[in-house]
């Protein structure tokens, strides 16, 4: 059992998402929020690109020596008084957490936000064992009430409007008779804070993820804005960190470099409100802190990635910038991707973790515009990785079983015939460009196209500038020849 997935229904999911007015309203906030904030934070730090280069070096060095850093990390955790549990797959990780819960006699579990626990389907497993598990990140709490998956790496409830949140609270929260239902966001938050505060105080075990693991000190770095990760660590008797093996970095200095990139890339903050270095249980005499500390290290397909052509994805620090800047994610949201990880990173990770069968539509759903790579703090070449999945998917497809309609195949054949006749191609393209330019009119785009009503239902097609590229190139070359004595490159020839 892993988290349930509907990746095979991607096309239907995506089609439904673009026609969902409530979702479209929620997604409309992405541009003004995350994108603008990241741009501001980046502009305020001249060292940003140098930090990205340093981050690539840190992650590559750590991955090259992953076995040694994991061993060193474990030794430090043990020296600090904690324990490390090594888990090859989701089942082993769930079993390890269950063993710790059983040994601690835990009944009430609170959780900080963790994508890895979503990935391994931890909550359902613990609930099946009769344990109470409560998410405490506000977004995760909301989607837990609604029995949904997170739709974003750092903003799991970004697909919801305040009205939907209010409805979920009304369904689930006990209120005094006659008490009004909160509607404004700050009233909704106040109610959630009250409810969750009680749960925090009653909990006997806390589970969090980790953004980084530091080999030097055995610390798990936990980054949040709410402080829920810290309460999950500090209040219960036992703290479990569940995290992927790729999170380990050598030193506190290396973590500092990555931290300078993480919040800026994610939310545009200089640093998130809470950055916590959790290194073992409370020491003798400490005024508070957990009595027991465990780290559950999860492989679940990561070592396979390490040795293959998708290794670069292991540099990902889960900031969510690629989602925030992806036109496809912006149009369909996270749930359409059908599993835990969405957006460009999800389209690369999901086939790797679940298998390409059933998830081949994810890497196909990209215009390869490259914005994801342009904003990635660790320079993961996402478009190239998507292309690699497409190649694999194509190689695995039986041409006879192609899902292309006869009309589509005839169209490809016609295009192929034309493409082998460059002169004719150029003339027709120039004609088409002029025609479409006229169709676009003064607005410069077309809201409707003949034979492509499905395509233009959810978006507009920008109209061409009026001439084809080859015609413009030839014209430009003639102008340059006239202006300069040096010969211009011949039209149609590329370096």
């Amino acid at each position: 059992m892993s988290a349930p997935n509907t990746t095979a229904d991607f096309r239907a999911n995506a089609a439904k998402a673009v026609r969902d007015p409530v979702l479209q309203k929620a997604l409309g906030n992405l541009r003004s929020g995350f994108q603008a904030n990241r741009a501001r934070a980046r502009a305020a730090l001249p060292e940003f690109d140098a930090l990205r280069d340093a981050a690539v070096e840190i992650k590559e060095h750590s991955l090259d020596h992953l076995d040694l850093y994991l061993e060193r990390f474990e030794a430090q955790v043990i020296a600090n008084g904690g324990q490390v549990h090594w888990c090859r797959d989701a089942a082993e990780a769930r079993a390890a957490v269950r063993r710790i819960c059983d040994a601690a006699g835990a009944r009430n579990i609170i959780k900080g936000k963790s994508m890895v626990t979503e990935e391994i389907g931890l909550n359902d497993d613990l609930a099946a064992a009769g344990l109470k598990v409560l998410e405490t990140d506000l977004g995760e709490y909301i989607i837990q009430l609604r029995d949904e998956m997170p739709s974003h790496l750092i903003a799991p409830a970004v697909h919801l409007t305040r009205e939907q949140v209010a409805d979920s609270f009304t369904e689930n929260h006990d209120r005094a008779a006659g008490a009004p239902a909160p509607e404004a966001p700050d009233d909704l938050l106040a109610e959630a804070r009250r409810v969750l505060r009680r749960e925090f105080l009653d909990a006997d075990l806390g589970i969090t993820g980790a953004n980084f693991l530091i080999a030097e000190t055995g610390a798990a770095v936990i980054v949040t804005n709410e402080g829920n990760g810290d309460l999950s660590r500090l209040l219960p008797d036992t703290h479990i960190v569940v995290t992927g093996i790729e999170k380990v970095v050598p030193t506190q200095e290396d973590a500092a470099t990555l931290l300078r990139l993480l919040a800026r890339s994610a939310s545009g903050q200089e640093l998130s409100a809470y950055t916590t270095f959790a290194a073992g249980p409370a020491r003798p005499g400490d005024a508070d802190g957990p009595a027991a500390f465990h780290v559950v290290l999860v492989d679940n397909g990561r070592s396979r990635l390490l040795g293959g052509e998708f290794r670069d994805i292991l540099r990902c620090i889960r900031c969510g910038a690629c989602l925030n800047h992806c036109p496809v994610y912006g149009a369909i949201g996270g749930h359409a991707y059908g599993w835990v990880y969405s957006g460009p990173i999800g389209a690369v990770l999901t086939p790797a973790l679940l298998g390409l069968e059933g998830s081949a539509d994810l890497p196909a759903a990209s215009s390869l515009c490259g914005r994801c790579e342009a904003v990635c703090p660790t320079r993961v070449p996402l478009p190239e990785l998507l292309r690699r999945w497409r190649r694999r998917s194509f190689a695995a497809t039986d041409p006879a079983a192609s899902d292309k309609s006869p009309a589509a195949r005839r169209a490809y054949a016609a295009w192929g015939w034309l493409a082998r006749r460059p002169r004719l191609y150029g003339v027709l393209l120039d004609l088409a460009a002029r025609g479409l330019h006229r169709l676009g009119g003064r607005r410069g785009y077309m809201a409707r196209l003949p034979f492509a009503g499905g395509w233009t239902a959810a978006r507009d097609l920008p109209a061409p500038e009026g001439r084809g590229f080859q015609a413009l190139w030839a014209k430009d070359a003639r102008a340059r020849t006239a202006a300069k004595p040096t010969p211009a490159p011949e039209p149609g020839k590329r370096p």
Partner: protein
Amino acid sequence: MTATENPGRAALLADVRRALGRAGASETHHAAVAARLETRLRGPIPARTALPWDGLVDLFVTMSEQVGVEVRRLAKLDEVPGVFAARLAALEVGGGQVMAPHPLLRGLPWPGNDAPRAGPARGDDRAALTLAAGAVAETGTLIFVSGPEHPSNLAFLPELQIVVLRGGDLCATYEDFWDRRREAGAPTPATVNMITGASRTGDIEQIILLGAHGPKRVEILLVDDAPQAS
């Protein structure tokens, strides 16, 4: 840790080594890791932190204000009890008050021995007085270190946190803070909290709201004359 509790350890490490194309780690690999841990190379350090002392204080104040944290500068530590009481009154925060059981705070001239309770916070405490172990000017970040004299939960349960920061504990960067700890020979504490602003969430329609779980408000009392932490 016995093998039965960790059945996956050897197999997982073998999977990692297979992926790296080697059966074990060579001398070269061990040496590279040892050197990295020993030299603790710094990454690019933001040039905005290359400032003399006064400049760092100004930067710290600017960055703190950017995340909604007010900084008050006090000439003497002895002023803390009076300012603490005045801030509670001005913000109309009643109810439980708690402070870190640190000798520096316990030893302050509390009028009529009316000091806040010293110890970890309880779920219904309204205000906490804490003592920062350090601060970072680069991002207006406060640092707290767990120990017998400083419960970590003071920074997370009450709605109002008032932080005493000694001027000598202000660092330019995170790296400077770690170096100071190492130079002092301090062991790895259970918990180090770097805190930049109040508790916040954007999980409802990306609207930023304060006081998600922790404090709605954080204020700093920057004491100019206080000695450095030992």
